């Protein structure tokens, strides 16, 4: 008999997937334009095992610019992952977020969404959870906060214009101040401008006060995909160890100085 049990491997399970349609669970943008509902709606149950790694998949086919909160527990649910940003242009656009965040077994998932058009369908969402087995990520967090996300009067990230001179970093732009200790960071760039061009970018994530930023993550690459004409990529999770109160900033360079092509929205997601 092997001394190796498959059960010792990490377990994996899904929630919110629609196997009949090969799709996720769609959420509507509720309430007014660019406004979230006051409470979260019940979505699904998590699998019957505890997990320490979660892959959120959001698939958006219309209405670019959506922010989704995911919560759990009993009503009123508390938000575990906030402001997952998705954009799209000409085609459906799939966005994955991988977070080392823990979920207890069998929890009820809740969600809410905001978008540019009241009542329209937002992204389909799915979550895949993994128990660690032997660890890929050293520790798991319990909550994911967003930084640089604009939720009032718009639904987007923080706009950064790298300027008309190609291949030169922009000035630092603040994304936010950590409200909790951060142990992982994911960094994303987004654009749904739909410009038929092919720029590419390098993003720095920095920490420190204005004027004294220190590069934490240098030169994360992003690209513009021609056919679906959208930029939507999230790097990470990168292990970090940042205390509450740390100022997060970003700066960007682009290999095109063409206005209307070079600008991107930036957002960061910090697991605590």
């Amino acid at each position, binding site marked *: 008999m*092997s001394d190796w049990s*498959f059960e010792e*491997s*990490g377990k*994996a399970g*899904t929630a919110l*997937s629609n*196997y*009949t*349609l*090969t*799709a*996720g669970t769609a959420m509507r943008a509720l309430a007014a334009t660019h406004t979230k509902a006051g409470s979260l709606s019940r979505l699904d149950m998590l699998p019957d095992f505890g997990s320490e*790694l979660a*892959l959120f*998949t959001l*698939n958006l086919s219309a209405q670019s610019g959506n922010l989704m909160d995911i919560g759990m527990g009993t009503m009123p649910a508390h938000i575990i992952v906030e402001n997952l940003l998705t954009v799209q242009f000409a*085609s*459906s656009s*799939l966005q994955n977020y991988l977070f080392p965040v823990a979920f207890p077994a069998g929890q009820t998932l809740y969600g809410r969404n905001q978008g540019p058009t009241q009542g329209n369908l937002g992204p389909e969402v*799915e979550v*895949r959870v*993994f*128990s*660690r*087995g*032997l*660890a*890929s990520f*050293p520790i798991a967090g319990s909550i994911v906060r967003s930084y640089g996300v604009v939720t009032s009067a718009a639904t987007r990230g923080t706009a950064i214009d790298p300027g008309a001179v*190609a291949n030169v970093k922009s000035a630092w732009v603040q994304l936010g101040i950590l409200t909790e200790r951060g*142990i992982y960071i994911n960094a994303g760039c987004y654009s749904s401008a739909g410009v038929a061009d*092919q720029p*590419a*970018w*390098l993003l720095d994530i920095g*920490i420190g006060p204005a004027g004294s930023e*220190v590069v*934490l*993550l*240098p*030169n*994360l*690459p992003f*690209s*513009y*995909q*021609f*056919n679906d004409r959208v930029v*939507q*990529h999230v*790097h990470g999770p*990168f*292990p*970090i*160890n*940042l*205390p509450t109160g740390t100022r997060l900033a970003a700066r960007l360079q*682009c*290999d095109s100085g063409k206005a209307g092509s070079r600008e991107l929205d930036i957002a960061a997601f910090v697991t605590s």
Partner: protein
Amino acid sequence: MSNWSLADSSRYFSIGTADYSSGGSVVADRAVNVKGSLTELTAATPFDTDLCWVHLHSHGTILSGSGTYNFALVDILAGPQNSEQVIIPNLPQRRGIQAGNILHSYYLPLSISQGTRLTARSQSSFGNQTTRVSMTLGANGLAPGSGYTKVVTYNINEATSRPTNIVTAGLGSKGAWVQVGVTTSVTRAFLVVRWGWNNSSTLASADLFYDIGIGPSGSERILIPDLHHTTIGANGACNPVLGPFPANLPVGTRIAARGQGSSGTVPGGIVVIGLA
């Protein structure tokens, strides 16, 4: 005074990014399905690292003619000149069939010692094209390192630069299991890549669910269910690299995959990258 030093945070640096905004040093193929020459990414890493991301970027790759496909494989090597050893073999990169950029980013938390020289090379099914390669390397602050020492890529055929095809079933049912590989090292985590097979300009956009399974043929058990990928018309997959996911697979474990699609049968390859 804070008891928290910023120096305790993880430290990161990038290599292969100094010369060009698109994120990578140019790594050139040679003839069809032949490894190209080495491009140096760094002469010496500045400190010990245990976090490693490899970014492959097809920016500027423009292939004429609808129906043309171009798959590339990129190796990362360590060591002094003329003594390089492959530490990361055959990372898949699918290049655009039209003007377009495709970014593949792989998290492979290998330990790499300070002072290591790193290089890259590529091969492709089209030949004489380029990939832009960069890496993000880091040291992990307070947390222990991953301890991974080896990367093994399954379901790669170097003779064709392509994976074995896995055709999805249509709505509501999975297709047949197709072997992806048999583990040659203990596998403690793995990444899953769907490699677009879209050499048809008329291929419909589709959503795809893939199961990753283990076990002998006819007795497969699902290890990870329903990983979601998409194709967008003829130009392939969005965000096709998923993971790393946890695992604990002994040597000799058979890995297989199967899929279903929202738009009939859709071809494509599933590549598993194991971390040992």
